[in-house]
């Protein structure tokens, strides 16, 4: 019996020699899993074996730890969902392979906006394949709440601040907020893009210019954060972001500042953009800006030709226009490709995609800070400490700007 099973094992081994691809990711929520399913179906249809390696935990921290363990044991997955500077870090470690030949024949250079290429084409090589782009500087507004006080959606920060007392009077919480450190970091970058404008945003949060971080512009950002701090209900600390979205959905709160992954919550609740809610960018005081986050699957170097084939099929599947549409309908983001027809997608996605194209051309598309594109994890972590400390205390904006600059200087 044992001899038989060993023989079976030996016989079974060559069967693994079909092209295969192992994908490590943290897309485990309903919409995310459905989105990845679109890619998987395409890959499986090409005759490639798909091995799913999900590591639960929305922000991907647990997945990152699992990846480090895999790398340390010399067994990297074929593809891994990673964000921003993590990709550049692994590329610098020499761990990532590329699909340059495929990108060349399929003309990726023309299909992708510069903003996306910055995070997938590292040192001239496509080490990562983009699935979607998220916009993080968004306001999700309840139409019912705005109708109740008879106000229009805010286009300036002053208008937004002036709305707060009216909402309170009408028994509506002005701002739905989930009081977790990472959510406050995303709120901060949205406010920063609006108050600073693209150029100063870059100077402060990408170049990490100390004078700008301590300067009056940053104090103004925290002053607006202080306004928002007052619009939040006392029960916010610790709340998950989707519960905050639910408060907007059922009209308990008027607005939420959150990346466009929040749209999935509205869609799942059967709400329609325009009729039930509005998705608008945060007010921009100094010219247009667009804060983006790129999701992509990075490819770790493989030597087995079957695994390399698997990576190529995966890359090709992700970039397929139909898959990009199906993926992003499920995930609530916009396709990474800007050269495809979006008629099938909702009004929110169409508007965001147009905004990406214009901002990319104008050079006002800036990478997310909280999502570790603009700076590395150490800097973002330190800055998040300062931001969340400010939001959960009665620190003054001046103190907060100093604390932020100090924290970033110490973490560099």
């Amino acid at each position, binding site marked *: 019996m044992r001899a038989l099973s060993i023989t079976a094992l030996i016989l079974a081994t060559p069967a693994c020699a079909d092209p295969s691809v192992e994908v490590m990711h943290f897309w485990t929520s309903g919409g995310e899993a459905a989105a990845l399913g679109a890619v998987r179906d395409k890959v499986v249809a090409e005759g490639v074996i798909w091995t799913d390696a999900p590591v639960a935990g929305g922000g991907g921290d647990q997945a990152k730890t699992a990846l*480090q363990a895999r790398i340390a044991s010399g067994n990297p997955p074929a593809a891994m969902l990673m964000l921003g500077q993590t990709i550049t870090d692994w590329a610098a470690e020499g761990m990532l392979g590329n699909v340059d030949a495929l990108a060349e024949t399929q003309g990726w250079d023309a299909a992708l906006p510069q903003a996306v290429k910055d995070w997938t084409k590292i040192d001239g090589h496509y080490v990562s394949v983009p699935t979607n782009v998220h916009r993080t500087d968004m306001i999700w507004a309840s139409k019912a709440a705005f109708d109740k006080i008879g106000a229009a959606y805010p286009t300036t920060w002053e208008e937004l601040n002036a709305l707060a007392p009216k909402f309170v009077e009408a028994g509506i919480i002005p701002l739905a907020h989930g*009081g977790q*450190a990472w959510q406050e970091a995303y709120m901060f970058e949205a406010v920063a893009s609006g108050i600073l404008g693209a150029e100063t945003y870059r100077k402060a949060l990408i170049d990490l210019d100390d004078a700008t971080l301590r300067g009056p512009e940053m104090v103004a950002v925290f002053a607006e954060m202080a306004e928002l701090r007052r619009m939040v209900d*006392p029960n*916010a600390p610790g709340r998950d972001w989707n519960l905050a979205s639910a408060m907007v959905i059922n009209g308990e709160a008027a607005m939420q500042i959150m990346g466009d992954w929040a749209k999935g919550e509205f869609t799942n609740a059967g709400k329609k953009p325009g009729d039930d809610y509005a998705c608008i960018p945060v007010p921009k005081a100094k010219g247009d800006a667009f804060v983006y986050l790129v999701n992509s699957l990075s490819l770790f170097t493989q030597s087995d030709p079957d695994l390399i084939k698997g990576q190529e099929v995966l890359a090709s599947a992700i970039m397929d226009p139909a898959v990009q549409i199906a993926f992003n309908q499920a995930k609530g983001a916009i396709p990474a490709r800007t050269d495809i027809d979006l008629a099938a997608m909702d009004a929110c996605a169409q508007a965001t995609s147009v905004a990406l194209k214009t901002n990319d051309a104008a050079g006002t598309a800036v990478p997310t800070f909280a999502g570790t594109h603009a700076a590395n*994890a*150490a800097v973002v972590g330190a800055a998040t400490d300062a931001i969340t400390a400010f939001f*959960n205390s009665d620190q003054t904006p001046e103190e907060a700007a100093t604390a932020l600059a100090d924290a970033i200087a110490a973490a560099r």
Partner: protein
Amino acid sequence: MASTEADFRTTLQNWLPKLVLAPSFAVTLLFVYGFILFTVVLSFTGSKMLPRYDWVGFENYQKLFALPAWTTAITNIAIFATLYIVICTVIGLMLAIFLDQKIRGEGVLRPIYLYPMALSFIVTGTAWKWFLDPGIGLQRIMQGWGWESFTFTWIKDSQMALYTIVIAAVWQTSGFVMAMFLAGLRGIDNEILKAAQIDGASNWQLYRRIVIPLLRPAFLSAFVILSHLAIKSYDLVIALTGGGPGRATEMPATFMYSYTFTRNQMGIGASSAVIMLMTIAAIMVPYLYAELKEKKA
């Protein structure tokens, strides 16, 4: 022939326990002490995302103690550990003494108090998170019952959130401490107590002068167990407050995890782990020393 067989059996008997223990010994040696050593080495290197072996001396330790987040973490653990150990010991001792009064239904009461220990800290943390949440828990119920002015918002308050962790942790472990004291109480020789009663000692004097001093070993065990539970507190904090509001309830263990694994500052993370190990060692070594000395004597 018979004698060689007997020899073989004795040899086997001598070697068998060692053979059987060898794998677990090797595994412990590698995965506990080996990795402790690895962490110590890492704490002196400039490791960021992956282990790297470039020697930087005490730089990580200097950076660590300059970080405001670390200061918060060690202040929090000092407050938490003190309150947790003292309150747990006092409540545990009281429960044990009350249960020791030969009361009816002790067999039912004892497991009820002990039961929270059977839950994981994650369950405790989640349950208390809901219970203490002003929007759904205690406050809402009290207000719903008509006590409109009742407020209890500690868990949402940066200044008070730490104490909610103390509440949940005390609830979880004081029953266990009670069991330890109860075992100690049952171990006390009745003759001594009777002798004291004949001498006219009051109940209060009996406990203060005789019983509690005799419980010294139980106090020591309780202290050691509670202090290491306090220092490694991670899951309870994550489940109850997630380190928030803000970073108000950050502990050394949560600090270590985030710096090592999510912020790519493995060197600093490792140095914080070493500091935690040294703190535990500072408590455990005198205890082990005292224990071993007593056994020899």
